[in-house]
Every structure is written in structure tokens, then in C-alpha cells.
């Protein structure tokens, strides 16, 4: 038997009271694969992201990680499984430095809990320089509040890279970015793919998705309507599915 997929969703349904947000949704994410999760507003993309990151629990169905059935009950469960969610409004603290944000909640400390500041700074500098190339940042001591939207996302990605995450969930990552920043972000996704890190790109923008994704999952009304490899489709066909379904 071949190696199990990194992450699989099996017949997942989710309802909030009388409202059914997801019904019978199944798809998978392979190792080092970039999957575009597409669909119009209200298709259930955000619910899916929240489900994979552990914020929502499925009403029915289940997830598997490396073929093993798992239940995420909170964010830290998914984080432990190697999943990092990067939100539109990234989960960073503006009043803290880049270094402190990268290590937030996972600080390097001595046994009394005092921060190893020099060490963290050095690692942050290393990550910023090599793993994630962020233009226009000269120091890891810069406060995150002073960064642009793209730079903030890069810091969030740097955090994921340093902590060796296996899947990045990018929720509308390009919506607030300039053209140049978008380009940098998409390159980053490809670079991570080369290092075998998978990404799920949740987006409206089919062109951005088409540039980097290996496969596309199109959702409509809480369920999957199309699942196709890049080689077997075109932007035109994807658009048709998103608009018409």
C-alpha cells in the first residue's frame, strides 16, 4: 500500500444550529502538495479552515493525519500535528518585536523561565534572512506593528518554518497584499513545497491559486464540487466551476 496522505478529511459535516455549513466534505492534502481551496463567499472555506485548525469540531466525519484518525479540539492540537494557520489578519502582537512574535508561546528559556534573548534574536535573524526573505526589514527587533501586511504574513510564515510545520493553512493570504508582496508570498509557498511543506491556499483569486497550486478543490454550499489536478484543467474551467456551481 502506498504511503497515507498527510491530511485527509472524511465525510465531514458541520452545522451550527439549523445552519449546515459543511456537508459530507472529503478531500486530502499530500505531502509537499499545494492545494487551492476555492469557492465563492459562503461556500464553507473558512469553516473548513477552522475545522482543520481545531477551532471547530466536526458534527460528523473525521480527520486523519498520516492515516491515523485524529480529533482536534483546539488550536494547539492542530499545531502539535504540524499544522499552522495563517489568517488574513495574522495572529501577531503589534506591540512586540519580530523575535518575540516568532517565539511567542514557545519561548526559549532557562529552567527558571528567563528568556534566552540573544539566542532567540540570533535564530530570528537567521530565519528572516534564509528561510523567509522579507524585504525591507533590517532588524528582528522591529515591532510587528510597524510592518506592512505582507511583511507580517512573512513573519507568521517564518514562525511556521522555524517550528518545522508540515502544513500551512493560508486563509485569503493575498487579499491585503500589494502585487510585489503577493509575488513574494507565492514564491515562499513554492520554496516551502521544495522543502516538502504542504500548503492549503484558501482564496478568491484563481490566478494566484493557479500560479502555485498542484491541485484544486472547489467548494460550493458546504460541499466539494470539483477536485482536479492542475495538469487536467485551466483557469477558465476553474472559473466556470466557481461561478456556476
Amino acid at each position, binding site marked *: 500500500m502506498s504511503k497515507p496522505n498527510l491530511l485527509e478529511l472524511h465525510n465531514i459535516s458541520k452545522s451550527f444550529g439549523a445552519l449546515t455549513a459543511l456537508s459530507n466534505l472529503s478531500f486530502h492534502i499530500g505531502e509537499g502538495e499545494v492545494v487551492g481551496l476555492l469557492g465563492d463567499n459562503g461556500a464553507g472555506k473558512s469553516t473548513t479552515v477552522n475545522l482543520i485548525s481545531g477551532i471547530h469540531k466536526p458534527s460528523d466525519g473525521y480527520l486523519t493525519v498520516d492515516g491515523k484518525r485524529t480529533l482536534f479540539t483546539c488550536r494547539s492540537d492542530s499545531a502539535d500535528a504540524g499544522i499552522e494557520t495563517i489568517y488574513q489578519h495574522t495572529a501577531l502582537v503589534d*506591540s512586540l518585536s519580530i523575535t518575540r512574535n516568532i517565539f511567542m508561546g514557545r519561548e526559549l528559556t532557562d529552567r527558571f523561565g528567563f528568556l534566552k534573548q540573544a539566542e532567540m534574536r540570533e535564530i530570528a535573524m537567521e530565519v528572516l534572512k534564509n528561510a523567509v526573505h522579507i524585504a525591507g526589514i533590517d532588524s528582528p527587533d522591529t515591532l510587528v*506593528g510597524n510592518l506592512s501586511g505582507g511583511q507580517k504574513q512573512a513573519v507568521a510564515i517564518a514562525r511556521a518554518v522555524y517550528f518545522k510545520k508540515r502544513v500551512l493553512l493560508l486563509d485569503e493570504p493575498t487579499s491585503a497584499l500589494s502585487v510585489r508582496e503577493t509575488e513574494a508570498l507565492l514564491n515562499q509557498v513554492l520554496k516551502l513545497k521544495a522543502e516538502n511543506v504542504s500548503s492549503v491556499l484558501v482564496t478568491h483569486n484563481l490566478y494566484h491559486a493557479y500560479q502555485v497550486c498542484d491541485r484544486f478543490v472547489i467548494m460550493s454550499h458546504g460541499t466539494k464540487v470539483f477536485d482536479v489536478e492542475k495538469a487536467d484543467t485551466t483557469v477558465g474551467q476553474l472559473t466556470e466551476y466557481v461561478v456556476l456551481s
Partner: protein
Amino acid sequence: MTPILAESAAPRSRTQKQSILKQIMGKPAGAIFLVFMTLQIVCIVGALLYPDDFRYLSPQNLTILMKAIPVLGCLALGAGVLMISGEFDLSIGSVYTFTAILMASLVNLGISAFIAAPIGILAGVMIGLLNGQITLRFGLPSFIVTLGGLLFWRGAVLLYNGAVQVRFDPEAAFSSLFSGSLFGINAAFIWIILLVAAFHLLLHSHRFGNHVFATGGNRGAAEAIGINTGRVKLIGFAIAGGMAAVAGILATTRVGSVQPGQGAGLELQAIAACVIGGLSLRGGRGSIIGIFLGVLLIHTITDVLLLLRAPGFYLDMFIATLIVLAAIFNHLIERRGLA
């Protein structure tokens, strides 16, 4: 003095000068530091020029300052840490009085002050935890919950003790530990310096401090990353209550008695010191040095006005102006993203 003046007067490129100023301003509490140093220089020069009329440097005046600063300092340190985590405690003035009376009564019953004082601190911590539990459990604004605390514990003092003062007569060792002096420096002042150093380490060099800033700065983000923000805030409340009790110990040992009405208004002064020191009312921003400079500034200005024989009634107007100016200034800095 002269070489410094000569150096600053020497021609220097505009950008270089700007960058030094900007560097200081960019540091946490940099702006308040500049204001404080300017005031000190003016006062010291004034005192040297007119030693008879402006007795700023006289030993008596310095002693008064050193005795007055620690009480507000303790209250502001506790209130400040809590404020950075995004909550307020308006009850600290009342808790300060209540725990002091508790301690003094225990000593009057014959219990050693070395046991009574920790009991007082413990009581402060418990009241802080209670404030925190109510705030967090019911998702209420801490402003309202601790406003309730302010009235409740003020009333509790009167219920327990009536409106009479309580004498505090601890053993000599206790008195000299908290109100004696070492090399001419007041013991309470040494305590506050030690506490400032300890709080600085805790907030800026310890994991807990990082979590306090994260909790106040972006609670959602802190929780997403796995920080237990409820616990961080609860510890903040406990620290605020405990430090109110410590302030009570310092004040009571110095004066030798507790007045039931003595804490009224101190909670607002403590918050004022924090705001002057650059703390954001929304949480997530500030520094321990800033808080301490805020306390020093309030006391220095009060002191200067008294030395200049300004009528006591008007002192509050100056402090009020200072607070509002500081708030405007901090707001501008926040918006420009300088600090």
C-alpha cells in the same frame, strides 16, 4: 556639566542629532525619560542658583521624596502589569487600606509583624484573585468589577474598624527593615528600587512577561498560539492586589498608624502614573521603567509646586494637565508607530 554642554553645542550634522533623539524616543519610555531628565536638570540648576528660595536639593526635601515615592510606586507597579495584560484594578486604593488595617490589628493582638505582614499580602492577593475570577468568569469589564471592589473594601474597613485610626507598633527590627535607612538612603526607597528591578526582569526578560504583553496586545493571537490568557490575567490581578498590600506595609510602617480614609484616590494616581509612563489603556504596551518614571514625575512635580509655595488646592490641576498631555502624546506615538 560643562563638557556635555560644550559637546551638545558643537556643530553636528542635523541627521545625527535627529537620530540620537529619535533613538531615545523610540525606546520604551524614551519620551518620558527625556521629560523627566529635563525637569531634573531645571530643578537642580534652579536649586544651585537659588539654594535659599528653592530647596530642592536640601536633605529634608530629598528624604521626603524618597519616603513618598515607594507607596505610589508599589501600587503603580501592580496596577501597571495588570494594565499591560489589558485589565484595570480600581480597588487597589481600598485594598491598600484594608490590608494595612488587617495587618495593624493583628500586630495589636500581639502577633509578630513578620507574620502579620505576609498575611496582609496574602489577603491582597486573594482579593485580587477574587476580582479576576469575577471579571473572567462572567466576561465583565474589570473596570466595573473593581469599581465594586473599591466601594466594597472601603466599606469593609469601616464595618470592621469604624472611622478611627489604628496604631501600628511593630517590633524594632521590622520598623528598621521598612522605614530605617542604609547609607542615608531610606529603606522604603531601597525596597522600591529592588521591586522595580524585579518587576523589570519579570516583565521584560521572563516568559511570563512576554505572555502579559501578548495577552494585552492581541488576546486572540495569544490564545491561538496556546497561551492561557485567562491565567495570565488572573496572575495580573493577584499581583495588583499583592502590591497594594505591600504599599500598605511601607506606608503604615513609616507613619506608625493607619487612617481608614488614606487610600482614597490612590488607585487613580497609580493609573495616572502608568499612563504618564507610556502604558496604553488598551493594554499590550508599556514598560516598568516607564511606570516608575511616571511615579517619579508625579512626585517631583508635586514637590516642586510645594517648594514654590503653590497653593495645595491647585496641585491636582497640574497633575491633571500632565496626565492629559501624556495621554495625547502616547496616542500620537502609538499612531505613528514610533514606540
